């Protein structure tokens, strides 16, 4: 008789573990969806701030046009082009705002300083959001690689989440010369 109890106990424990793991996976996927939405919102905030700076008359016309163009591309790009467009925007921002001395000079006008601070914060927020998102994704991937999870298809039909890889470096001038 004893072995029967043992078998039942083991089966119950396994069942609890599996349902717990499935629930964990499910919650993780839900959080990844939300963090992806946060990331999109932060990138929209960043390109919005760039458009504000570009249309403020703070910079020379050529620079303003290039910034506005890169920002609106990033806002309208779809699907697979999206990440590339955000990286391109980062490259343009870096070209314009890399030198702390240049940025310090621009900042001498108080309204410009406020717009630049907002842009700097938006750049940071976007970079933070991406790292948080990627951390959640990597955690889920680790969980899904476990043998039991794979064999028993505990993840159901949810697609394997992917990290977002793009260049979101905060331009050095914006990072160094805040006030």
């Amino acid at each position, binding site marked *: 008789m004893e072995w029967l109890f043992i078998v039942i106990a083991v089966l119950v424990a396994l069942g609890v573990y599996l349902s*717990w793991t499935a*629930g*964990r996976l499910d*919650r*993780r996927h*839900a*959080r990844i969806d*939300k*963090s992806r*939405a*946060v990331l999109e919102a*932060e990138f929209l905030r960043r390109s919005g701030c760039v458009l504000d700076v570009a249309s403020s008359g703070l910079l020379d016309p050529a620079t303003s046009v290039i910034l506005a163009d890169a920002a609106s591309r990033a806002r309208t790009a779809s699907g697979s082009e999206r990440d590339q467009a955000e990286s391109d925007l980062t490259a343009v921002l870096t070209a314009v705002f890399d030198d*702390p001395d240049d940025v*310090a000079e621009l900042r001498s006008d108080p309204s410009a300083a406020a717009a630049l601070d907002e842009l700097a*914060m938006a750049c*940071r*927020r976007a*970079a*933070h*959001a991406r*790292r*948080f998102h*990627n*951390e*959640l994704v*990597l*955690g889920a991937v680790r969980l899904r690689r476990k043998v039991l999870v794979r064999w028993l298809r505990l993840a159901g039909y949810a697609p394997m989440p992917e990290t977002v890889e793009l260049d979101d470096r905060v331009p050095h001038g914006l*990072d*160094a*010369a*805040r*006030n």
Partner: protein
Amino acid sequence: MKIGIACPYAWDIPGGVQIHIRDFAEELLRRGYSVSVIAPGDDDDDLPPYVTTVGRPVAIPYNGSVARVSFGPRVAARVRRWLVDGDFDVVHVHEPASMSLGMLATWWADVPVVATSHSAQRRSRAMSAAQGILQSAFEKLTAHIAVSEEARRTLVHHIGGDAVLIPNGLYVDRFAVPPRPQWRSPDGTLSFLGRLDEQRKGLQVLLEAWPTIHDAFPQARLLVAGRGDIEQIQQGIAPEHRDTVEFLGGVSDEDKAAMLASSDIYVAPHIGGESFGIVLAEAMAAGAPVLASDLEAFRAVLDDGRLGALVPVGDADALARRAIEMLGDPELRERYRQAASVGVRRYDWSNVTDEVLAVYEMAIAVGAGGRTFRLPRR
């Protein structure tokens, strides 16, 4: 927004993490947020109203040194009580890798958890043994912050997981104090701050360089602030240079700011073990041109030498040469002072708090990690 902060170390023992949490909590309160801090300590300690305690920490050997931490069933119950009563929107734990309140709060919280790692550590046996537990606790974090690149690297290499960089903060304007005439001198005043007997603070390097500096500028003087065996160190200085080195002992925050404001060069000859270098930021805020060892943490704060001078670590000759160059060139010092007064704003609590609040906002939008396991609420 209701914010709960878990401090791993006893509130009444001065330390970088405690000061960081105190200054940050007070900035949040000024902005009208509701803040509660939980920390090891007794109720009868003289505590600000926003601090809740969980009882005396115990000293145990952990991770190669003696750690004063809080754990055990009573502490766990208190942490859970605090979480339930606080009804927080977000919980912010500090040093989540230390086996203390940070980990307990992470474990029990069912709201989004943000963590900040401060220290840079070498891999230890304790950390290897605890890696599985740490990882499952870290999985619950919605956002992880590191105060320096080195602290971040500790996470990446030793625990697994990554963090965003948000530096330590300070109140820049509190360091804008007038210099004290009795600390000034016509040839220039140098200053040093740090425990005297702690090798890694590098006082020995500065004292090795001092005779050369003093010979070049006979009226220059050196202020040394920090606790330690003053007499023993004084005996080690050659008699003809001894009187120009003034030992101040431990200094109050006020005296520290005044000393930095009276300095023509603040020297940071550290030879290692610094994760962030808040003292450099303090010197910059007080208007003291900085001359520092080329440690990674210092290079970051000084923006690769744009905001202050860097010399090779532990090289007394280079230190002396550079100090002499700076003392002889008031324009160079003024340039450093100007650049630093702008650059140090990056570390002002007004900026750092904005950035942490942005992280809170994102963490709340993403939501809490599932509870590791559920117990009924009381």
